[in-house]
């Protein structure tokens, strides 16, 4: 569980995050949605401690991020896996070396065991015959899979994904979404996904928070988002005719039931 309270962050005169509070629940895929520039990425980076907040509290289980000592924070970092928007794979390393990296850096396990665990993670994300390939030889979807494998190889308690579907075709997007959801359940981790992909919202949004201009405007589940009358959410989620129709069909079905 991750709890954030009254997060305030500004850059110069512009306030990017305006007192945001929520709880990201364990074993669930928690989605942060909103338009580009609404503060989603800044919020994730604040939770990770990559950007220092001006005010507020960030709590991982019972520990507060900004009250932790260096050792405690270093330990917390090893419980966090992160999938970046552009995958952020290390260019000079092969797929296997990328996945091995966190274990090599933070554990003293024998090489065989490290390689074995990396291969389990690589197989888990369904990457076959790619261990010796460089990131430049992989497709966008494959890079995402490697990034997920690297994020889960240390058995993290928390998984963060920054727009995991950006740049992917619809089919691959669904595969990546499902993979993240399966991993969340399988490892019982707290997953926080930053997305503006409506398919993800409908498919895997077990908890959704909607940001607009740095403020939290709505919070609910993928079922509740169909019924909401919140103007900000409906304008954003149902901006296309297709999604308006989907909503209509869904609500009709609900009424009939």
């Amino acid at each position, binding site marked *: 569980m991750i709890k954030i309270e009254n997060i305030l962050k500004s850059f110069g005169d512009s306030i990017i995050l305006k007192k945001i509070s929520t709880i990201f629940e364990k074993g669930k895929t928690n989605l942060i949605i909103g338009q580009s520039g609404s503060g989603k990425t800044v919020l994730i980076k604040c939770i990770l401690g990559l950007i220092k907040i001006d005010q507020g509290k960030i709590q991982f289980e019972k520990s507060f991020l900004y009250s932790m000592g260096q050792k405690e924070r270093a330990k917390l*970092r090893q419980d966090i896996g992160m999938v970046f928007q552009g995958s952020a794979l290390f*260019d000079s390393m092969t797929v296997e070396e990328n996945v091995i990296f966190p274990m090599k850096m933070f554990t003293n396990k024998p090489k065989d065991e490290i390689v074995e665990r990396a291969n389990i993670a690589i197989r888990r994300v369904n990457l076959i015959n790619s261990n010796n390939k460089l990131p430049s030889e992989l497709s966008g979807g494959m890079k995402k899979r490697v990034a997920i494998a690297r994020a889960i190889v240390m058995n993290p308690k928390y998984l963060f994904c920054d727009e995991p579907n950006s740049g992917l075709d619809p089919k691959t997007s669904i595969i990546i979404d499902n993979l993240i959801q399966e991993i969340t359940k399988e490892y019982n981790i707290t997953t926080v996904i930053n997305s503006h992909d409506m398919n993800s919202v409908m498919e895997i949004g077990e908890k959704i928070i909607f940001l607009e201009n740095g403020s939290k405007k709505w919070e609910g589940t993928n079922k509740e988002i169909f019924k909401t009358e919140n103007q900000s959410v409906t304008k954003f989620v149902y901006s296309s005719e297709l999604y308006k129709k989907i909503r209509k069909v869904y609500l009709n079905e609900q009424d009939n039931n």
Partner: protein
Amino acid sequence: MKLFLHLGRYFLMIQKTFGKFTKWKMLKNLIFREIDDLIISSIGIVSFLSFFVGGVIAIQTAINIDNPLLPTYLIGFTTRQSMILEFSPTFISVIMAGKVGSYITSSIGTMRVTEQIDALEVMGVNTYNYLIFPKIIALTLFPFLITISMALGIFGGYIASINGGFASHSDFIEGLQLDFIPFHIFYAFIKTFIFAILLATIPSYHGYFMKGGALGVGKASTTSFIWTSVAIIIANSLITNLLLT
């Protein structure tokens, strides 16, 4: 005011570079890789430049001492002094600010743009130590490169003098040995060592704190070259004043 901000951030970066250390097993590999990328790969260009500049210094000196009262051994003397005191330590360092400096800035800058540095930070890696420390250690071998430059520059001068018929073998060697002050070598290596630290840290700073995308990487590389060159020239002036006057 901005200059103080950069200076403060630069010194904090150096402090953090010597903070939490990366695992030795990994650091060792990184250091060897940096030695290969920064030092070994520069041997060719440094050798080429030094050999020909040494030759040109010898020819220029020979052409300009047309007075028969001036001895030809001055060609060897001038080549030695020019190479040891200025060209090899200072100008090779400025050239390296272009080659090595741009490489450092663009490689770290690209890691920043592609969020690889963020990925390392999320994992709990001290990114300053992981990225910058191996470069500093690799560049402590920079005096080795400068030694090659000095030797090849003098050799270039010798070849140019003999082939051009400007001085005999014995005259050139006599010039080389004339009034030799071993402290000058020491002075050159002190300079080189300080320039090596500047060469490793200033481009790293510009890469690490760069902003923007691919265009930003290009801009950061250019800015890094300018500031590294400026810092080398200022440091050169200060060290020379301190050690030789």
